[in-house]
């Protein structure tokens, strides 16, 4: 029975003009997104190679280690083809200089502002926005449309259990919409292979999980569509409700979650931190002044009542003591300032992570953000990319500076090497210069957060399926 019903469902979908439209739009968009992604990856790779080659050239021509200027470029990752995430927003490059703080620059969006206006249209965007909309277009009238057309009555003049009917509705619509997703996806993957994008096993596994999460995500919208089609009597009202919910889930909740988090948990800006620090420094210096004034008065009165040698000796001791205490006090206050600075920094980090946690937790009420966060994590383009990149750069910088110090000891510290015997200065040997390579989080690390998002999506699907069953068991088929 279910087989007949599913067959019919698939047939009605495949024969509908809606399907042809959705299939062609999906094919074009998905293939285009893969093509553009691959193209961008190649451009990024060329950029990476060009910068590195130039840098290597410059370094090789140096005659002193002191003059070596490293400029790190983040190696492009094939996963960025599918989910660009924040990859285009954060700087790709970072100069490694002595003592400087880590400062990224040269993000794609800052270089090419035009692209930042509409953002990139990657595979994730297509699934998140377009496929979810198509899922609704496919299913908003699946029950109420049949009721309005009068075919539902005719179906139920036959001995069909309602549960079978609703199951085949969901499965049929799901299969029908999988086709416009899976065929262009396979073609896209073929494109990746043909273009020889260097994907390793982990990449493929991550990509497969992204596809899996996409399927779970659009399954939710199919279930949602079927649910509303079995709650309402008229397709027009079903479509209206679904559109409102879609707008809420895809456009509003993700942004609102982050905005609300921004309202509730404020993160101090760098300027605020600096001004707080200056304030503290002023307080400390005032405190020092006060302390000094007090002690000086003591000394002055002691000086005024100087009469004999013994007292003079005592006075000299007092001055000594004062100088000792002053250094101690000075160090003490400086330590306090340092401590304050560290605590400010810590608080800033805590606040920031609290804000992130709250923002993401609120956003996750929407399956669209659960899907987005999961696929960004899987592709390694989530918000953690920036901090991870910076942390790894910091470690590299420390290591490189040690390396350079060792080299300088060996070859001499001066910026200008002595010209001995009219010979040209010897170039430095760069054969063992350390190389920076950004390391992505491991799959098991990624899955720790991704599993939550998958759980959220599964939970939503269960709720909609339960809702569909409850609504349809009592549905008036007339």
């Amino acid at each position: 029975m279910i087989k007949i019903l599913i067959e019919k469902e698939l047939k009605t979908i495949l024969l509908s003009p809606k399907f042809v439209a959705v299939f062609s739009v999906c094919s074009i968009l998905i293939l285009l997104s893969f093509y553009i992604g691959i193209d961008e990856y190649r451009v990024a790779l060329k950029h990476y190679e060009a910068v590195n080659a130039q840098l290597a050239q410059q370094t090789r021509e140096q005659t002193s280690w002191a003059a070596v200027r490293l400029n790190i470029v983040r190696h492009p990752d094939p996963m960025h083809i599918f989910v660009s995430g924040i990859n285009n927003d954060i700087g790709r490059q970072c100069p490694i200089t002595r003592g400087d703080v880590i400062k990224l620059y040269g993000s794609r969006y800052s270089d090419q502002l035009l692209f930042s206006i509409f953002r990139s249209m990657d595979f994730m965007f297509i699934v998140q926005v377009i496929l979810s909309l198509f899922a609704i277009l496919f299913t908003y009238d699946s029950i109420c449309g049949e009721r309005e057309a009068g075919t539902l009555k005719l179906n139920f003049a036959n001995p069909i259990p309602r549960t079978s009917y609703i199951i085949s509705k969901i499965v049929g619509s799901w299969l029908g919409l999988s086709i416009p997703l899976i065929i262009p996806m396979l073609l896209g993957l073929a494109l990746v292979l043909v273009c020889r994008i260097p994907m390793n096993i982990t990449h493929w596994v991550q990509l497969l999980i992204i596809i899996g999460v996409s399927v779970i995500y659009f399954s939710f919208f199919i279930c949602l569509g079927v649910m509303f089609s079995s709650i309402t009597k008229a397709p027009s009202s079903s479509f209206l409700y679904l559109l409102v919910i879609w707008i809420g889930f895809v456009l509003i909740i993700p942004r609102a979650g982050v905005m609300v988090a921004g309202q509730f948990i404020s993160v101090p800006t760098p300027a605020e931190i600096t001004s707080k620090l200056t304030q503290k420094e002023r307080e400390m210096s005032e405190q020092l002044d006060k302390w000094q004034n007090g002690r000086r008065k003591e000394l002055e009165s002691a000086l005024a009542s100087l009469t004999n040698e013994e007292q003079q000796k005592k006075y000299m001791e007092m001055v000594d003591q004062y100088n000792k205490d002053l250094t101690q006090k000075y160090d003490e206050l400086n330590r306090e300032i340092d401590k304050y600075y560290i605590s400010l920094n810590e608080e800033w980090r805590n606040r920031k992570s609290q804000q992130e946690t709250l923002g993401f937790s609120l956003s996750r009420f929407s399956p669209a953000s659960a899907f987005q966060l999961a696929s960004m994590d899987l592709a390694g383009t989530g918000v953690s990319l920036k901090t991870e990149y910076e942390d790894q750069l910091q470690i590299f910088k420390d290591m490189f500076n040690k390396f350079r110090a060792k080299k300088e000891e060996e070859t001499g510290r001066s910026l200008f090497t002595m010209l001995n015997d009219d010979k040209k200065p010897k170039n430095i040997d760069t054969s063992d210069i350390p190389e920076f390579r950004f390391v992505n989080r491991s799959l098991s690390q990624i899955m720790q957060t991704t599993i939550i998002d998958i759980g959220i999506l599964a939970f939503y699907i269960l709720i909609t399926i339960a809702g569909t069953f409850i609504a349809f068991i009592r549905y008036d088929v007339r």
Partner: protein
Amino acid sequence: MTESINAGTNNTIVLEADKLTKRYEDGVLALDELSFTIKSSEIYAMLGANGAGKTTTINLFLNFIEPTSGEARVMGIVTHKEPLLAKEKLAFVSENVMLYQNFTAIQNLDYFAKLGGKKNYTRDDYRNVLLRVGLQEEAHNKRLKGFSKGMRQKCGIAIAILKDAPAILLDEPTSGLDPKAGYEFIQLLDNLRSEGKSILMSTHDIFRAREIADTVGIMNQGKLVMQAGRDELTDKDLEQLYMKYMAGHMEAAA
């Protein structure tokens, strides 16, 4: 036509309304203790003004709605207690047959036949039944989209025939059929009766009802106000009867 009445010798009761009452959620009493029986090889025509309760009766037999009290039975099966079992014994043609617009006539037939549990029909069977209901061969493989109301009605009847159930429920089956198709339809009903089917049809067509029905029931405001067998009817003028009962009840109601 006389011999076909006698054709069904085992006159078992197939369709039965037993004090069937339906009050809708908004308080409208659509059926008020309606009772009748229809035997095999019998055609029962329900007449009555708009809103008399004809469609409600048919919907109760199909368990599209639950009765407020009373029972509708198909071969002894109470429809609201065992709807799936009852529906195996029922074929249904709705007032305005709507099928899958993107399927051809044959595809629609195939789907609904399978739903009705008939999985062994061949294309020839579909062709023959469509010819039997009077749908020209060139339309068989066309999508339903371009079909006229009468053509859709014919497909609906074909589906009911294919189900081969002991009882057939028809809600205003001749509305929308042209005179020739209407005439052919009456012949078809006669055929089905001689095959032993028990047929309940609602109609506004007094003349067709008189022509084909074994029993005519006139309904008004959910009640059966008159019921007459074929033999009684030959003497009376049905139209006058209909008007009389309607008028009588109008006065009673006023």
